[in-house]
């Protein structure tokens, strides 16, 4: 999958602080972009349903929205903490960290 661009947003949580980033994969350091591409493969991002959230939102959990754009078009997935398995948690933590370091630069 030739990933071009990624949009990430985390809202909610106890603090209610929004963290977001919108970047081209090429903008990242090589090691980070490789790790990100691998994790997206690992979670089978393209085959995930658009909504992975439970029926009723749990108080203070995070809500994440990830959009991946590639040559084949774009796919958006929204999920909550409780629907993230271990690989997905790794992906979310990496995206979170990328978003935070980019927010600082802006």
């Amino acid at each position, binding site marked *: 999958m030739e990933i071009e661009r990624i949009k990430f947003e985390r809202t909610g949580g106890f603090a*209610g602080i*929004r963290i977001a980033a919108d970047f081209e994969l090429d903008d990242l350091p090589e090691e980070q972009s490789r790790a990100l591409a691998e994790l997206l493969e690992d979670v089978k991002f393209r085959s995930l349903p658009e909504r992975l959230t439970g029926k009723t939102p749990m108080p203070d959990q995070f809500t994440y929205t990830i959009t991946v754009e590639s040559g084949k078009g774009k796919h958006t997935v929204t999920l909550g903490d409780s629907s993230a398995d271990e690989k997905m948690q790794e992906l979310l933590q990496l995206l979170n960290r990328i978003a935070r370091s980019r927010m600082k630069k802006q």
Partner: protein
Amino acid sequence: MHKHSPIQCIVPPHMLEGIATKGTEAQKKLAVNTLKTSEQMRGQRRALADFAAAAFRVAATGGKERIVYDAKNGSSLPGTPVRREGDAATADVAVNEAYDGSGVTYDLYNAVYQRNSIDGNGMRLDSTVHFQKGYDNAFWNGEQMVYGDGDENLPPEERLFNRFTIAIDVIGHELTHGVTQFEAKLVYSQQPGALNESMSDVFGSLVKQYQLKQTAAQADWIIGAGLLTKNVNGVGIRSMKAPGTAYNDPVLGKDPQPAHMKDYVNTVGDNGGVHINSGIPNHAFYIASMEIGGNAWEKAGKIWYVTLRDKLTSTSKFQDCAALTYQTAGELFGAGSLEQQAVKKGWTDVGLSVEGGGTTEPGGCLEAILRFLGLAPAR
């Protein structure tokens, strides 16, 4: 036509509350027998049986019971039990904070609002600490409290959050989500969701004030003081005294909370801004507490608690909460009382009227009593 519960016509609810919680065994028996022989109790045997059972169950319940678990940076809940009720402190500060904080929260609800734990019936308080790695959050999962360690896995200069048990109001906040789940059941979205959040901030802050024995004027009214690291320009996560001023930071941005309806934030994120618009009812509570003076948990807290327990419904909005707290203040302290006027000022100052709105479900005081005793019929 409104159907009256017979108990409503015999004994006022505060008396039954007193009998159920403070009465001797003999007094309870007398109360139950009095009700039994009452002409008006005919056809109400079921309700009477419930009442009798509940009255004695409250007495039989041990009360405060806590277990703190360690997730060991994993995601399975609840994890390994590391401290049970009555155990000595451990070497793990997060474990001790979760234990002590849930204990003070239990004490406030029990001693001040005569509520025996989250469900009103002695439910055990379970907390899990060290959830995942770098999890800068705490939440209530419907059954227990869960706390992350902040962003402990980042280099020190990048860290923004400390462990989430560090602030006792966070613990009171999470436990109150449990109380709301058993009472008003406010849906976690838009205005009902922001009210759900606000109730958690209100009682979270009251747990801290109760622990520190601070009056409304002495309290800082900050939610999550100590939670942000020194890398962040901020005093905490939210300010009930001055919503929108808790932090202003290059990385985290500015505290987005409004203090007035004219600044209400419409957003799809955060379940419709539940952690943002909660600033409005939070500020109304702060103003009412300051107007009343003294310890906020005694009067303003009582008004909010009774409203949460008996009047708000799952879809209540800010306007309903304004009207219902005003109504409750009148019932508890008298129409036109200082307390009722204070509640009115609180809501007026944030742009809401205490007249109109405020639909509540009919239930009568029997339901209220049974709910108090932890025997509420499902709503």
